[in-house]
């Protein structure tokens, strides 16, 4: 399905990522998901910053401000909290750290679990209280 692509001249390219993913601080090419123990390769379709498991969308709290800086000492599990949409139609997953409550946003990858994404997208609509009140105000 085509996305709206606004013509932007000041498009920032993705930062180059040089991150130690392997065990013991080695340059690995995969990481193991802390949620479902899936071995996830780092090469992802559509993004250079894969930070969550494509199966269960769980991430690990290792970065602080900049993706890939590995400056956080928390190392807690981050679960997918909600979905956000950029201006150009890209979906972002908002992760919440279960240990310290920190939030982070990451673009979805091309091989992320579509069913898990769609469950998060329709979760506000499954609650009928606010949608019905909003439609009644129209």
């Amino acid at each position, binding site marked *: *399905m085509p*996305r*709206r692509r606004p013509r932007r001249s000041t498009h920032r390219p993705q930062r180059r990522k040089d991150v130690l993913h392997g065990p013991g601080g080695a340059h690995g090419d995969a990481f193991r998901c802390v949620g479902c123990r899936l071995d996830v390769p780092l090469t992802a379709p559509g993004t250079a910053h894969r930070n969550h498991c494509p199966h269960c969308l769980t991430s690990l709290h290792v970065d*602080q*401000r900049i993706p890939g800086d590995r400056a956080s000492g928390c190392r807690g599990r981050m679960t997918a*909290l*909600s*979905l*956000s*949409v950029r201006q150009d*139609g*890209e*979906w*972002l997953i*908002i992760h*919440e750290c279960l240990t310290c*409550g*920190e*939030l*982070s*946003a990451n673009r*979805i990858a091309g091989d992320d679990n*579509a*069913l898990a994404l*769609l469950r998060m*997208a*329709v*979760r*506000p*609509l499954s*609650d009928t209280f*606010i*949608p019905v*009140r*909003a*439609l009644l*105000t*129209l």
Partner: protein
Amino acid sequence: MSTDNPKNRSTKSSANGAGACLRTDTFTCLRCGLTVATLAPDGSRRNHCPSCLHSQHCLDHVEGGPSDCGARMTPISIAVLRTGGWMVIHRCTRCDELTSNPVCGDDNQLILMRMAVRPLAQPPFPLEAFGDL
């Protein structure tokens, strides 16, 4: 940070909870200019404008304590908790920090619904396959 101005103090004080502010405290929305009472009708403390849902970056969540950013925060998404409550996720327009706040009873329902159905308007994968499930 000066505390002599009561309007500044109400938006920038770091303490949460209704006991930390006066009942008559107000703040001015950075986007629409609406003067908003800090105390919500249900007794909780309000930190975003009920009309446009924009907020101000007052608390630093990475290092903790008050933030010196002070920029406007736009609502970017709706999160539903396991208890059924809704949270608004705000993103700072200046430093890209994310915060989450519970919605109030008098928040603008149309903006809330517009953010809730926004992902389904432009899905990155075809939704026809989910009809078979």
